């Protein structure tokens, strides 16, 4: 191997892969992430693809992207802007130029930079010759041609050969980041396990890219990102949806139950169903229902029959499930409803991220119908909050809505693998067979939960349903005072959960000028921006909410310790409005954005500084 040029040590680097839907950018992104994880970098990724399956090739609307942020310190977001952009065609370049740092390295497949492609991408002038790329380090590689040559000599037909070009890109990057190309080879061997011809050709192209990079002058410097220090143990990368599925599976195991998922496919929640369906070996059963209503209804049936029952969906699906959630509230059965938020209203922006289902989760049902609502805040902690959702639901005998979002669901990060024996115990309030004096709506005073008797158990036959229940007996009751009591029981049961959840924590000083408030999936950007400003000496802290209903018991007290409170969310101010209704004594400033995009660190810093200056 020829000698390397100068190597620059970086704390962190953001790489964006972009091309047509068929260009395999998601795969290259995965491969690069895995390799980084393998050598010990922290990382966070985010794919970003069009709502069409294969949107028209060469158009901006058809660009499919994958962003990876790796670091030798902790990494919390996929990054605002890229240090390295791979653009497989002009459309990919056009779509991404605004997300690229000044001076970034831009690798393009020169074979696709011709007039036809410019036009398709909507360029009026040739971007390579209009000075718009001045100040960037542009690497023009004949990626298509070289890949095709190598792959066809390795025995592939032309069409299949063209699919290897993402490995040329991968090779380039292995060289650029001083990575061991063996790891890339192993990835391919595993990926195409049953297709040796593909393995061979792809490895050949991978080497071609690597060698090309080494040969040309354009890449005068290479980068190196050290492994993270202090992170010890076994890790894997995990997406939010996979983590959610695994969290539910883990909860079932801890509770000594089997998992039942009743769902209907919907972007961006489908992968939860697709993941659970793979784990029948753990006794998990996934039922792909005919629609969302059947999905949740079947889960309610499964819960009645004694399973840990869950349903997963996105906003429009949650809207359809409202009536059934009310039934679960009334029958006081455990049920986890996972809602992976996407851009709304209506079909909206189905592949984009948003946090605008909060009020729907809280109030989207008839009558006084309280649910526990919690939210995950990173791809990996979807595992913990899915587990927690199941635990709360089972132990408190009431439905729990878990909110995640498209950004968490599809994004991935490095995750320290937990040990099952260290996970908290889950003890559902089951009734013993033939228990004496069993009443279905008799309550445990501690949590106000009723007890769970399951068909098949002798001596416990009883009937439940959606009509108002008599206190203790569970028989249908139209008595006015009973209704008042039961409405209050259901509400108190949910509010009492506050006694069983952690207190709200503040990152940064416990008091000060500005408290930034976030909830759910915005954590990464918020913590990064807040930390940056604190490093600059500002008096600023963050409190990120994972428990929404009930709010942690010390919420009021936390708020009272700061001069100003700024609530940041990807909607028009739903959490701020909820906080006003629950803790009206504070003034809540707002930062809202509703563009289908996550929050950016840069915009947050500007906003925070603005507020800080006004204090």
């Amino acid at each position, binding site marked *: 191997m020829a000698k390397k040029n100068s190597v620059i040590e970086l704390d962190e680097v953001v790489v964006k892969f972009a091309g047509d839907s068929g260009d395999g950018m998601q795969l290259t992104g995965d491969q690069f992430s895995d390799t980084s994880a393998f050598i010990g970098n922290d990382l966070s990724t985010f794919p970003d693809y069009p709502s069409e399956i294969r949107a028209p090739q060469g158009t901006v609307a058809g660009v499919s992207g994958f962003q990876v942020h790796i670091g030798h310190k902790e990494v919390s977001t996929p990054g605002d802007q890229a240090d390295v952009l791979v653009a497989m065609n002009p459309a990919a370049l056009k779509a991404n130029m605004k997300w690229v740092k000044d001076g970034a390295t831009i690798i393009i497949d020169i074979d696709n930079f011709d007039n036809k492609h410019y036009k398709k991408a909507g360029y009026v002038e040739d971007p390579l010759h209009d000075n718009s790329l001045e100040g960037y380090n542009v690497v023009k590689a004949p990626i298509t041609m070289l890949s095709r040559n190598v792959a066809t000599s390795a025995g592939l037909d032309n069409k299949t050969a063209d699919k290897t070009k993402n490995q040329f890109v991968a090779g380039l990057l292995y060289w650029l980041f001083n990575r061991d190309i063996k790891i890339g080879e192993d990835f391919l061997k595993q990926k195409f396990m049953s297709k040796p011809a593909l393995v061979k050709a792809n490895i050949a192209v991978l080497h071609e890219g690597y060698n090309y990079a080494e040969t040309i002058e354009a890449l005068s410097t290479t980068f190196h990102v050290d492994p993270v220090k202090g992170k010890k143990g076994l890790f894997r990368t995990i997406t939010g949806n996979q983590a959610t599925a695994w969290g539910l599976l883990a909860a079932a195991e801890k509770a000594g139950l089997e998992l039942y998922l009743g769902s209907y496919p919907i972007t961006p929640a489908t992968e939860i169903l697709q993941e659970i369906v793979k784990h029948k070996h753990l006794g998990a059963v996934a039922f792909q229902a005919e629609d969302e209503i059947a999905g949740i209804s079947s889960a309610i049936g499964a819960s009645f029959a004694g399973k840990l029952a869950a349903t997963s969906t996105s906003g429009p699906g949650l809207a359809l499930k409202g009536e059934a959630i009310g039934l679960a509230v009334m029958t006081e059965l455990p049920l986890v409803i996972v809602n992976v938020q996407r851009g709304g209203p209506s079909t909206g922006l189905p592949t984009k991220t948003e946090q605008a289902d909060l009020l729907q989760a809280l109030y989207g049902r008839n009558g006084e119908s309280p649910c526990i609502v919690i939210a995950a805040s990173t791809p990996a902690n979807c595992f913990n909050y899915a587990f927690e959702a199941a635990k709360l639901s089972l132990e408190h005998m009431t439905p729990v809505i878990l909110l995640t979002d498209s950004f968490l669901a599809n994004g991935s990060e490095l995750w320290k693998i937990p040990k099952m024996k260290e996970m908290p115990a889950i003890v559902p309030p089951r009734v013993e067979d033939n228990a004496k004096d069993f009443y279905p709506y008799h309550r445990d005073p501690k949590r106000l939960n009723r007890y769970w008797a399951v068909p098949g158990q002798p001596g*416990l036959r009883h*009937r439940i349903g959606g009509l108002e229940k008599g206190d203790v007996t569970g028989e249908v009751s139209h008595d006015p005072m009973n209704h008042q009591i039961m409405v209050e029981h259901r509400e108190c049961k949910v509010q009492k959960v506050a006694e069983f959840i952690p207190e709200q924590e503040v990152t940064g000083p416990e008091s000060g000028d500005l408290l930034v408030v976030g909830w759910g999936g915005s954590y990464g950007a918020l913590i990064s921006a807040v930390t940056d400003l604190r490093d600059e000496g500002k008096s600023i802290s963050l409190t990120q909410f994972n428990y929404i209903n009930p709010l942690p018991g010390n919420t009021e007290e936390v708020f009272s310790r700061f001069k100003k409170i700024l609530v940041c969310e990807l909607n028009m101010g739903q959490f701020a409005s909820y906080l006003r209704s629950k803790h009206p004594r504070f003034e809540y400033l707002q930062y809202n954005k509703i563009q289908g995009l996550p929050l950016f660190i840069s915009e947050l810093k500007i906003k925070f500084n603005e507020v800080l200056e006004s204090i």
Partner: protein
Amino acid sequence: MATKFEPLSIATKEDFKLGAPVKWCAGCGGHSVLSSVINVLPETGAPKENIVFVSGIGCSSRFPYYINTYGFHSMHGRAMAIASGIKAANPSLSVWIVTGDGDSMAIGGNHFIHIIRRNINVNILLFNNKIYGLTKGQYSPTTPKGSITKTSPEGTIENAFKPGELTMGAQGTFYARTVDSDPKMMREVFAAAAAHKGTSVVEILQNCVIFANQVHKEITGKDVRKDNQIYLKHGEPMIFGKERNRGLMMKCSKMEAVTIGENGITEDDLIVHNAYDVDDTNHYRLVRMELPEFPVAMGVIRAVDSTVFESELYNQVQKAKKESKIKNMDDLMHSGNVFESKG
């Protein structure tokens, strides 16, 4: 805690009676269906704690409150979906669905056809009173065209579903029809439904004395029922009529109602009912027979063995459990691409 089952305890009908008052109108057809069900349950052999009644919303759907089993009175139209989850959770339960013509054919139509398609092993008792009872008298998808109801002051303009026809369209494996006023037939039909492995659809012509009184009278009236019904039994020739001299016969690929003795027709010319015929063309014919050309078909019209959803599901589960090396979450989380960091 896994569910344990007691050794099979022989249940009696007393076991299924509840003290609570039955709140249907006096004279409602529901009462006699209820007692037929209570009579038949001990014969099904299911331990009493394994029996679950699931219903939607409607007069008929109050059923679970009137019988001492596990019961779930759920949402309008969703009993089929809830029951699907119960069976997919625990296939050993004996699940009965009670539903109305509005509950199953209007709002619940989709779950109805899908549970049938999947052939989940439940028994559906469809109380067809051809009206929305609980909401006081609007037409339903089975209301005969032209009927005057609270929402059709000039007569309905919608064609009526035939539950049996829809069942066939959804590839049903079991369909039977019976009448609220015929306890003997109900008992036989319910027992057959319980014995069938797969989705058993039992349409019960039920009388709503308040909002559609006598809607079935041409079929069920004491004076006409022998001539206007044919009680089909597998393996028996298709004979009906007060005099037992009428029958059904195939002529040029069409079915006809004929009289034995006329035109030289003998019993041997009649069709012998084959409820087990996999090809449902004949069953399809039978469920659609209408007065006055034909008598209305009663009894078990179709009962065909086929794969049952939850059995296949648990076959896959068992196979996966046996074959996978991953036995628990720790195994799963450590499978595939795991990176060790020495920190």
